[in-house]
């Protein structure tokens, strides 16, 4: 062997070994026991477009979280002022960023303002003004606190969604925050995407409110402290939905954040599923008090502002457990239990992107992509062999090395392979022989000038070198931009393309060169098969 080829052959060999090593977890479905911590575990993941699944982008309506905080402040102020005997006309959130207070007298207003300053120092108060003979002022969250509240809401939503998905049971889900108020969820291989989406996207705010039997739902006027909600029931046989309007107390007696557990149980009498809930200490105490004080009255179980049911309190319920029954299927009961356990979202979420690919389409894409790839490779291999003879075969060998290294690198990075990613690999097959084409054409020119094969070979590689580097860098620039801006499938394309281009530089300048060097090292060859 000529000098200087040894290390190059070793390098090629080492890379081949490494590629196979990294590809093993991808190719072997069950790794043997001795494949311990030392060996690579990462494998090439299939993108959602290949294995089927759902990709969701959700927007957290963060302003609603701010509104929720303001509502709490308003309720708390109502209670505090009442207990301190400070008379007020109305305290309520107005718009999405203020609490407005309406009081009878200037004196009380001043007392209240001082009280608020102590209790909610970070809130900003407006000067008092006159509103229809009353004294009014408003309270608003300062900008930084509002931002914090929004930020926290997204963080909490992320945690809650992660909880729900874990309990729902999806293997290898991805749940990430993106930008200011977006959450990206990927659920690979999910069978019932619609159900999962409903489960994730539900706010699941559970409230218990007293029914106001004294106000007829059909009467146009509803007092400030009450609201009109609807009880929706679906007939399991016909699927027809009926809506019954019910007037309830605006203020909730108990809310879902006082729950410690929720489980599906089956009613032994009617064989109907229901959701059994457990309150924490505070919840249990409240529930005990409320039921004791209101025996014979109805209370409404309100979920996301829809009345789930409005049963009559038959007796005082102590012990802190209750049940939510209704027209459940086993699935819907299980889903309700999950969302109650995982907790409510701090603000509603809106699904702004939903890409779902069925598993059969994914498999179909894999098959077609591989088939197209195989044919592409064969066509190029055949073309090169016919056109450049032995040299063409060496270029083909370089191309195969190229693909092997690329797959190895993808596995080592734990990259995700998408259909456009497969397309990039197939395209690379065509482009990767380009370096060799540039070199071969150069060698042919040098041969025509009458150089010996050895001299022509060296001159060909030397002169082609800069051209090849230039051409690779330009492709890398676009691939890098694609990677930076692309999402999902496009990113996969960019990853395959840029890795392929870099690897190609190696196989063209080192890989195939060393074979030629070995064949030609004596410098006595009269002809060259090119």
């Amino acid at each position, binding site marked *: 062997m000529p000098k200087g080829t040894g290390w190059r052959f070793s390098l090629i060999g080492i890379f081949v070994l490494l590629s196979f090593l990294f590809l093993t977890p991808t190719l072997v479905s069950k790794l043997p026991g001795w494949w311990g911590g030392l060996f690579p575990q990462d494998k090439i993941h299939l993108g959602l477009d290949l294995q089927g699944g759902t990709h969701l982008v959700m927007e957290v309506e963060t302003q609603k979280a701010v509104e929720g905080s303001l509502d709490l402040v308003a309720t708390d102020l109502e209670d505090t002022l009442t207990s301190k005997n400070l008379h007020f006309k109305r305290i309520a959130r107005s718009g999405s960023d203020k609490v407005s207070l309406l009081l009878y007298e200037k004196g009380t207003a001043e007392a209240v303002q001082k009280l608020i300053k102590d209790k909610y120092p970070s809130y900003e108060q407006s000067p008092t003004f006159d509103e229809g003979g009353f004294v009014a002022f408003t309270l608003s969250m300062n900008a930084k606190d509002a931002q914090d509240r929004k930020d926290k809401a997204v963080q909490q939503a992320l945690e809650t969604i992660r909880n729900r998905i874990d309990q729902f049971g999806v293997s290898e889900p991805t749940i990430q925050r993106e930008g200011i108020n977006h959450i990206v969820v990927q659920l690979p291989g999910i069978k019932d995407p619609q159900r999962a989406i409903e489960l994730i996207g539900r706010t699941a705010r559970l409230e218990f409110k007293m029914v106001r039997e004294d106000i007829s739902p059909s009467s146009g006027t509803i007092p400030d402290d009450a609201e009109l909600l609807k009880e929706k029931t679906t007939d399991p046989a016909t699927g027809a939905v009926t809506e019954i309007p019910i007037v309830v107390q605006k203020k909730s007696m108990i809310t879902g954040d006082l729950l410690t557990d929720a489980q599906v149980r089956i009613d032994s009498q009617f064989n109907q599923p229901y959701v059994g809930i457990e309150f924490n200490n505070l919840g249990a105490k409240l529930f005990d008090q409320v039921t004791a004080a209101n025996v014979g009255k109805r209370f409404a179980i309100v979920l996301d502002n829809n009345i789930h049911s409005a049963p009559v309190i038959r007796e005082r319920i102590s012990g802190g457990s209750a049940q939510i029954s209704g027209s459940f299927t086993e699935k819907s009961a299980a889903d309700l239990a999950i969302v109650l356990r995982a907790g409510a979202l701090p603000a509603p979420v809106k699904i702004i992107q939903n890409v779902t690919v069925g598993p059969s389409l994914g498999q179909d894409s894999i098959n*077609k992509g591989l088939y197209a790839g195989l044919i592409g*490779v064969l066509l190029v291999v055949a073309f090169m062999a016919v056109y450049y003879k032995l040299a063409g075969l060496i270029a083909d060998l370089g191309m195969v090395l190229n693909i092997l290294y690329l797959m190895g690198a993808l596995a080592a990075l734990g990259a995700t392979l998408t259909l456009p990613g497969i397309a990039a690999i197939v395209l690379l097959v065509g482009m990767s022989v380009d370096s060799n084409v540039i070199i071969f054409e150069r060698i042919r020119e040098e041969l025509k000038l009458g150089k010996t094969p050895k001299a022509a070979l060296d001159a060909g590689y030397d002169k082609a070198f800069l051209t090849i580097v*230039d051409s690779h860098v330009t*492709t890398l620039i676009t691939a890098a931009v694609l990677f930076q801006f692309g999402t999902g499938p496009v990113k996969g394309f960019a990853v395959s393309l840029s890795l392929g281009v870099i690897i190609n530089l190696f196989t063209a300048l080192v890989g195939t060169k060393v074979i030629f060097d070995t064949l030609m090292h004596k410098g006595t060859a009269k002809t060259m098969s090119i």
Partner: protein
Amino acid sequence: MEILGKTNIDFIGKRNISFVISAIISIIGIIGIIQIGRGAANMGIDFSGGTAMQLKFSQPFAIGDARAALHKHGIAKADLQEIKDGNMLLVKMAGAAVGKPSEMVQEAFKKEFAGNPFTVESSTEIGPSIGDKLRKDTLIAVAISLLGIILYIAWRFDFKFGIGATLSTLHDVLAMVAIFYLLNKEINLLFITAVLTIAGYSLTDTVVIFDRIRENLHKNLKGSLHSIFNGSINEVLSRTIITSVTTFLAALSLFLFGGEVIHDFSLALLIGIGVATYSSVFVASPIVVLLEDRALAKSSAGAKA
């Protein structure tokens, strides 16, 4: 084997013809881009927002019936496309909100095609805010990659070459848009990916020729600019063609066998490879010659005065 022996084609001399052809293509491309900006082109829902579904029915169906079924349930503005292979139907509804439309379509077919059950092979729902963001991001991506390319070429060669390379790359981008616009093919994210890929590919083609021109300019200080440029293009012509052939073969197999999802993507690649090959020979170098001629004329005019 050799397809081309030694050639001596006057590429630069044909620049009047090629410039006219390229100008027409570019103008159509610009019209296409304006239409895309106005939202009047066939935009993919990843840019326009909306819902796209692929349904697989168990039995053959008439597309007219499908349209009637949707119409009956109040879905008037839907693009329907049938894929004969496997009783598939593509439904596209632009600009609609997330969630509702897909449910409505499924409801409609459940009721009207009761005897022909279907499965949802894939569904994509994109809210309008995402589409807007994506459109902006894409414009930035295209702009940045073009800028990166100009800078690199300007650094490696000189400014005139940079202009030639950029204009010919821009020409390829416009040509791809023009052809997709004329064929009324969907402009979506995959198309943009194809365009950027071809931008890189076209540049590679151009750089290879430029490299040779530079080399010959250093070697040969006597020949006219025309003959050096022409000679260089002819010298690398077989490389230009061979590489186009191999890449074309690979893209062709994607086009023929890669399946519906990347069908238009591979079509864009095929068109792009053709256009890029043409532009590296007929657009990039002639532009540089034109610029050099002008600079020369100016300096000699200056010398006379």
